[in-house]
């Protein structure tokens, strides 16, 4: 049996909830976690990763809003029957751009400086 694991890097500028969201979305999108599979309880996953329960709860909330999972009181969080279709190239590029801007912000650069850097790369 293959183990599905998630990893969080606390020095990564991407917030832990977002790192977790992407990995879980990938596991669901790639079929490693299939419809009806139960995700770990929020407290368990938070304790295993040394994160606050609120961080994991936010990840689950965002996954639910995106249609990847369904949460039911007392029934835990399960992979939704119809997970969203894989992202289009445009959406993937937008996600990469968002991550790039997040990284630039973490480095103390403004969005305009980040765009200028991209432009310089394209031109030169």
């Amino acid at each position: 049996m293959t183990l599905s694991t998630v990893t969080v890097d606390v020095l990564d500028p991407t917030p832990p909830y977002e790192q977790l969201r992407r990995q879980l979305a990938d596991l669901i999108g790639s079929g490693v976690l299939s419809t009806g599979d139960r995700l770990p309880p929020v407290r368990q996953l938070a304790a295993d990763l040394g994160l606050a329960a609120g961080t994991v709860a936010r990840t689950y909330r965002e996954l639910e809003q995106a249609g990847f999972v369904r949460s039911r009181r007392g029934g835990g969080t399960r992979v939704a029957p119809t997970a969203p279709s894989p992202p289009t190239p445009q959406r993937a590029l937008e996600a990469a751009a968002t991550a790039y801007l997040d990284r630039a912000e973490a480095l103390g650069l403004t969005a305009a400086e980040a765009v200028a850097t991209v432009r310089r790369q394209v031109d030169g």
Partner: protein
Amino acid sequence: MAVLLLAGPIAFVGLLVALWRRGGVTVGVDEHRGVVEIARHTRRWRAAGLVLGGLVAVLLFVLGERVDALGRAAALAPTALGAGVLLGTIAGELTARPAVGIRRSAVVERRTLGALLPRGRAVVLAVSTALIVGALAIGAAWGSTDDLGRAGRVLSQTCTVLDADAGPVTMSSSRGPWPGSFYAVPLTVALVVLAGLVALALRAIVNRPRPDLDSRGLDTLLRRWSVGNVLTAALVTVLGTLGPVTVFMAAALSGGACGNGVPETVLAWTAAIVGPFATGAAFGLLAGLVLPPTITVDDLPRPQPGEATPARAPVR
């Protein structure tokens, strides 16, 4: 006295079984450090709980008569012992925190108690619990008020005997101590509290954070041992309570002025068999609590492939 004579050999067999079945795992000096540290931490807490619980149990047993001369305090001794172990387990599991680094990984899994529960011990605990509940219920139902007005402390029987000279004579007898409501109420409250502690301890074990992923198998084994210890502590309490309760039942049901009916006879024989066995098993299982399975760290470095093994060094 006869109970102790019968229970003694059973307890001795229990001790031998505990020694024989005492499992353990040996790991290298640098292997599975996270799990080894958690195992040591939880073992220290559990041992502290066992010592504290044992101390309170001995105090209740020895000095309990000063609090309650009729044995109600002494009857709580097994519960005190079990509660001590369970509180130690809860404290150890809740305070065990594996070291976290910058990169933290977790398995996407849902840990359940069912995967950790030793089935055999769980069934024995369920049967023992059913027996103690049944014994206390029958005791409370059949118990009568004694001559000093204490409800549910004696077994009273009334019958009519045909005397050759006087004709039909109504006779009655009261024998005790009988585990009626006088004893059953505090024992039931104590056992309910213990059940709550068992639930808390099992929850703490299942929810304890996992250390590094490479030690997943050993960590699961450690959790199984911990769950087993919790069930053993509960069993020691239940059997340690069931034993005396059934022994007093058997004693009160024998030798009365009125003969026993079928239900009384069946109960007397059942109690006479269960009493010594439960008492002995409780003492025997106590050995399992004192000698739980452990993770041993081998100080000698693991020999490299092709390296000559030093004389008398362990070969793995």
